[in-house]
C-alpha cells in the first residue's frame, strides 16, 4: 500500500509537471503565432481556465486518491426502516455532489496492472436506479455521520480481521457492478466493458535488431499476434471497403468504400492517387491498384499502436513510415491507440490539415471542455466510445459507407439522458425523442479551429494569383486546389436523420439542373426513427464528364499528375483510366454538396442551447405559464433562458458574439414544421394548451 501511495504521488507530480510544461509550451506557442503572422496556421491552443468543470478528470483523479477512515459500526436497519427513519429526507438525485468518479483508490492494491481504473458515471447510474440505497446500502452507526458515504468508507482492505464479514473495496466494486449488470441484463460484465486494458511493456518482449525495416517490425508483431493479423486483414482500416449497412439501397453490399466507389468533393477519389491517399492506409506500400491485401506482413501496426508520438508516415510514401522514424524505439513502446494515433489520420482528413471534418481536429487533444467535453474535459480516448473488437472499430460516418458497428450517445447516456425530477428534465428528455443530443450540445462546430467549407477545383492552377488571408490566417486560394472558404464556429445545418444515408458513388449521374448531393442523410418529419441532427455542409465545384454525366477522377499527385502538368485533360484521362471508366475527353464543372455528421465537439450543459434559442414563443411574457400554473419562487422566464446561451460561450470564444440573444437557431419551417412546435404542435402531438388549440377553440 505504501508503494501504491508513493506511486500516486509520483503520478500526481508527473501530472503537475505535465501541466506546467504544457502551459509554458502554450505560452511559447501563442507568442510564436503572433510574431510570425505569415505562418500558415499556428495551432493556437484554447485558453486554460480554472472553472470547476474544466478539468473534471483531474478533479476525479484527486478525489479517487483520497482515503477516508474506516466505518466499523454499521446501523442495523432494513431498507424500509431506513426510509421510515428518513421520511422526506431520503436522498434524491439532486443531492448528488459529484456526477463523475474515477474508481481508483490507493486501497485497491496494485496486485496486477492488467486494467486501468473504471470511469464511473455516478449521476447516470443514480438516475437509472432512482434509489440511492441500492448501492449505498448501509450507513454508519454514528447518527451524526452523513447518510450517504462513499464505498471506500466501509470497504477498504480485503480480509480485515477486525471486520471479517466485510468485503474489501475491490470485491465490493465488482460485486455491486457485476451483480446489478447481470441482474438487470444491462451494462457490461466482462473486464474490458468497464476497464481500459493496460498493455504490458513490450521493451523486453520485442526482439528486434536496430534499424529494422517496416515489414520486419510487422513480422515481429505477428510472431505473437498472428490472430490479430488475421483480424486486421478483414478490417475496413485495411481493406478500405466493407459492409455498408447504413447506406440506403446498399444495405447488403460489402464492396463499398474509399478503395472502390466512394467519391467526395475534397480530393475526389483514390484511383490513380494511391501514394498520396494511402499515406493514411494502415499498411505499407499500396502504390498501385494491385496491392496484395492478403499479405499480413504489410500491415502497419505502429500507426495505431505507437505511444512515443514519434511515428509518422511519409507524405507521398504510399503508407511507408517517414525515414526519420526510429522504428526500433517505436516497436518497443507499442501500446493502446490514443487520440494522437487515431488523429494522425482522422484529424488530417481531406488532407493534411483539419479540413474535412467539422468535428475532428488536433485541438481535441487539448484539455478543454469548451472544445469537447469527452476528450477535453474527461480525457476520453477514441476507443473509449468507439468500442473495438477483433480490430473492428465501431462507428459510422456520413462521408464513408463502411461501418463496423454503430455508436450513439444513447449507448452511454441512455435514451433519457437528463437526470433529475425537475420539470425541465422531463421536457428535455421528451426532446431526446425528436432531436439528437448534439443538436443542443453542439451548437457550433469548428469551435477551436477553422475548417474548409467550400472548395472550388475549377479555379485551380493559377500560380500567379496572390492568395488573401482571412482573420485566422487561412488563404482563400491555393493554386493546387483552387478557391476555398475557411470558417470557424459555424452554425450547423439541421436535417432529419434516421441513421441511414443516400450516397452518390463513382459512375452515378450528376444533377444537371442544380447541385449534386454526394452524401445526404435520410429521414423525414413523419418518420418516428428520424431525429433532427446537426450537419456540416461541404460545398464544392468539381469536374464531371460532359458527355457521360458522371463525376471525373483527377490524377493529382505523382508523375504526370495535375500538380506537375496543370493539364486537366491529361489529369482526367489518367484518373479515369485508373478508375476503369470511359472518359469522353470533355469535362464540365458541377456544384456538389456533402453532408458530414457532427458527433464530436460535444459541449456540457453549461454551453448547450437554451430553450429560447430555438423557441421564440418562450420569449413572450406568458411562456411556460400558458400550460403550467405559476409557482412562487419559479420564474418561467429564467427557466426558458437557463442553460447557457451564447453569452457564456462568447466569454470563452469571442467569435460567437453575433449569436448572442438570437432565437432563430432552428428553422422549423425548413424542417417541415408549421412554425415553433410549442405553439403550432409537434410532429406527432400537440401541446394541449398551445396556440393552435387556443385558436381552434376560437374558431369553434
Amino acid at each position, binding site marked *: 500500500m505504501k508503494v501504491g501511495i508513493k506511486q500516486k504521488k509520483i503520478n500526481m507530480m508527473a501530472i503537475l509537471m505535465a501541466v506546467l510544461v504544457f502551459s509554458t509550451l502554450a505560452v511559447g506557442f501563442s507568442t510564436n503565432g503572433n510574431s510570425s503572422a505569415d505562418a500558415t496556421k499556428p495551432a493556437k491552443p484554447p485558453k486554460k481556465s480554472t472553472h470547476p468543470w474544466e478539468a473534471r478528470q483531474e478533479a476525479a483523479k484527486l478525489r479517487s486518491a483520497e482515503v477516508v477512515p474506516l466505518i466499523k459500526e454499521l446501523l442495523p436497519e432494513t431498507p424500509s426502516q431506513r426510509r421510515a427513519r428518513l421520511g422526506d429526507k431520503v436522498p434524491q438525485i439532486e443531492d448528488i455532489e459529484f456526477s463523475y468518479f474515477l474508481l481508483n483508490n490507493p486501497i485497491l*492494491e496494485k*496486485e*496486477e496492472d*492488467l486494467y486501468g481504473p473504471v470511469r464511473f458515471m455516478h449521476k447516470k447510474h443514480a438516475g437509472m436506479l432512482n434509489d440511492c440505497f441500492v448501492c449505498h446500502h448501509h450507513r454508519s452507526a454514528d447518527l451524526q455521520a452523513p447518510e450517504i458515504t462513499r464505498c471506500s468508507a466501509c470497504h477498504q482492505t*480485503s*480480509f480485515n*480481521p477486525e471486520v*471479517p*464479514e466485510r*468485503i*474489501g473495496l*475491490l*470485491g*465490493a466494486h*465488482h*460485486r455491486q457492478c*457485476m451483480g446489478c449488470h447481470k*441482474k438487470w*441484463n444491462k451494462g457490461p*460484465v466482462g*473486464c474490458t466493458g468497464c476497464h481500459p486494458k493496460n498493455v504490458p511493456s513490450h521493451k523486453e518482449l520485442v526482439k528486434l535488431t536496430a534499424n529494422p525495416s517496416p515489414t520486419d517490425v510487422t513480422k515481429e508483431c505477428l510472431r505473437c499476434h498472428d490472430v490479430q493479423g488475421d483480424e486486421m486483414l478483414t478490417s475496413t482500416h485495411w481493406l478500405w471497403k466493407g459492409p455498408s449497412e447504413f447506406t440506403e439501397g446498399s444495405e447488403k453490399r460489402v464492396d463499398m468504400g474509399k478503395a472502390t466507389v466512394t467519391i467526395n468533393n475534397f480530393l475526389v477519389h483514390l484511383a490513380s492517387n494511391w501514394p498520396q491517399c494511402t499515406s493514411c492506409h494502415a499498411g505499407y506500400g499500396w502504390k498501385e491498384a494491385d496491392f496484395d491485401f492478403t499479405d499480413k506482413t504489410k500491415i502497419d501496426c505502429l500507426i495505431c499502436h505507437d505511444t512515443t508520438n514519434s511515428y509518422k508516415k511519409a507524405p507521398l510514401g504510399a503508407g511507408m513510415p517517414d525515414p526519420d522514424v526510429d522504428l526500433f524505439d517505436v516497436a518497443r513502446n507499442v501500446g493502446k491507440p490514443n487520440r494522437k494515433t487515431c488523429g494522425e489520420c482522422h484529424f488530417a482528413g481531406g488532407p493534411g490539415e483539419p479540413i474535412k471534418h467539422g468535428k475532428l481536429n488536433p485541438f481535441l487533444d487539448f484539455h478543454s471542455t469548451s472544445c469537447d467535453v469527452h476528450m477535453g474535459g474527461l480525457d476520453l480516448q477514441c476507443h473509449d466510445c468507439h468500442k473495438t473488437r477483433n480490430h473492428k472499430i465501431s462507428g459510422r460516418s456520413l462521408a464513408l459507407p463502411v461501418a463496423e458497428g454503430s455508436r450513439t450517445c444513447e449507448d452511454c447516456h441512455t435514451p433519457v439522458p437528463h437526470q433529475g425530477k425537475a420539470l425541465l428534465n422531463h421536457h428535455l428528455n421528451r426532446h431526446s425523442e425528436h432531436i439528437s443530443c448534439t443538436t443542443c450540445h453542439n451548437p457550433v462546430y469548428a469551435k477551436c479551429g477553422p475548417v474548409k467549407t467550400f472548395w472550388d477545383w475549377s479555379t485551380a492552377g493559377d500560380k500567379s494569383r496572390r492568395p488573401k488571408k482571412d482573420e485566422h490566417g487561412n488563404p482563400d486560394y491555393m493554386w493546387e486546389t483552387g478557391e476555398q472558404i475557411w470558417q470557424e464556429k459555424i452554425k450547423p445545418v439541421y436535417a432529419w436523420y434516421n441513421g441511414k444515408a443516400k450516397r452518390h458513388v463513382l459512375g452515378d449521374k450528376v444533377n444537371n439542373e442544380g447541385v449534386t448531393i454526394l452524401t445526404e442523410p435520410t429521414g423525414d418529419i413523419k418518420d418516428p426513427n428520424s431525429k433532427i441532427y446537426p450537419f456540416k455542409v461541404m460545398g464544392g465545384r468539381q469536374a464531371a464528364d460532359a458527355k457521360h454525366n458522371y463525376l471525373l477522377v483527377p490524377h493529382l499527385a505523382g508523375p504526370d499528375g495535375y500538380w506537375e502538368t496543370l493539364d486537366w485533360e491529361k489529369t482526367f484521362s489518367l484518373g479515369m483510366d485508373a478508375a476503369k471508366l470511359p472518359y469522353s475527353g470533355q469535362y464540365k464543372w458541377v456544384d456538389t454538396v456533402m453532408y458530414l455528421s457532427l458527433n464530436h465537439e460535444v459541449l456540457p450543459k453549461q454551453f448547450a442551447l437554451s430553450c429560447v434559442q430555438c423557441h421564440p414563443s418562450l420569449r413572450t411574457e406568458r411562456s411556460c405559464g400558458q400550460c403550467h400554473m405559476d409557482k412562487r419562487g419559479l420564474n418561467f422566464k429564467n427557466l426558458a433562458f437557463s442553460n447557457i446561451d451564447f453569452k457564456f460561450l462568447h466569454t470563452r470564444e469571442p467569435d460567437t458574439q453575433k449569436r448572442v440573444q438570437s432565437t432563430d437557431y432552428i428553422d422549423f419551417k425548413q424542417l417541415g414544421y408549421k412554425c415553433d412546435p410549442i405553439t403550432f404542435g409537434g410532429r406527432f402531438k400537440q401541446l394541449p394548451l398551445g396556440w393552435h388549440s387556443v385558436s381552434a377553440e376560437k374558431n369553434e
Partner: protein
Amino acid sequence: MKISRRRFIGLTGTMVGGALLGKPAKSGAEYKPKTPPDPFGCLVDLTVCVGCRKCEQACNQVNHLPSPRVSFEDPRVFEQRRRPDVGAFTVINRYYGGKRDERNQLHPTFVKVQCMHCQDPGCVSACIVGAMTKKDNGATHYNASKCIGCRYCMVACPFQIPAYEYHDPLFPRVRKCTFCYERISKEGGKPGCAAICPVESITFGKRRQILELARHKIKNDPGRYVDKIYGEHEVGGTSWLYISGDSFEKLGFLDLPTRPIPYLSETIQHGLFNYLWAPLTLFGILGAVVAVINRQQNRSSSESVQEGHQPDQDTQDTAGLQEKPDSSKREEKL
C-alpha cells in the same frame, strides 16, 4: 521338537497378522494429528465466483510458471475438466449443478481446484526424506532440494494434486500449490489468487476465523448455501474451505473420510515399531526356528554318521517315495 514347514509358515502368519490387526486398534486411540495450532486458511465461496480465471493468472505470475497455451481470457478451457499440473497450480472448472437463473439459463458454478493444504497431510506422512512438511502458517510446503523423486506424495494425496515434471530428465520436481508460503509468511501477505480475486470469492485469514465466517454466512443466508463446509472435517480438515449453493458431489468434490490420511498408514507403521515389538517378535521367532533346525540338524547328522547312511535321495524323490528322514533332509535344504 520337530516343526514342519507348513506349521512354521502358519505360525508366523498368525503372529504377524495378529500384530497387524491387534495393534492399530490399540494405538489408534493414541493417534495425534500433526495439525498446526493456528494456521491460515482460505474460504472459497462458490456462489460468488464468476469464473474470470484471474486467480489462475495471478498464480502463474506469482510462481513464475510458463505462459499457458490458451490465454487466461479464453473461456473455452471450461469445456473440459482440468486438473492442476506442472504448469498451473490452480485451475477453475465449470459445473452445471442444474440451477437456472431468471432468464432460464443454466447457472454455472465455478470451482477452484488447488492443493487443499490438509491440516494433517498424507503427502507429508508419505515423504520418506522430509521434503514435504506442514508449516505452522498452514502451508504444506515442498522442498525440492530434499526431494529424491520417489513420488510417494502423489500416491498419498487424496485429491491427486501433486504433479511431477516428467519432462525434465535431470532435476524433476514435484509441483503443487505452495499456498504462497513466502508471501503469507510476511506480515499482511496474501496468496496471489486471494489477493487478485475481483469479486473476493476467496477469503484469506486465520482458519479459525474464516471457519466462523463460513458458518456465519450459511446461517445468515441458508437459502443460498447448502449446510456444509467442505474441508472442515474432510481428511482431518483442510486449510482451504469451500461453501457452495449446490451439493458438493455435483461439483466434483470427493466424498472423503473425516480421519486424516496418515491415520491408517502411520498407525500401522507406528504400531509395528512400538517398543520394537514387531521386529523383536519376528527375529525372536526366526531365531527360535533357526535354533530348532540347528538342533535337529545336529541330531540327524550325528544319527546318519552312526548308521552309515548315504544321503542319496534324488532317484527315490522322483519316484515319489517319501520317508521321514527325507522330509527332514528337505527342510535342511530349505
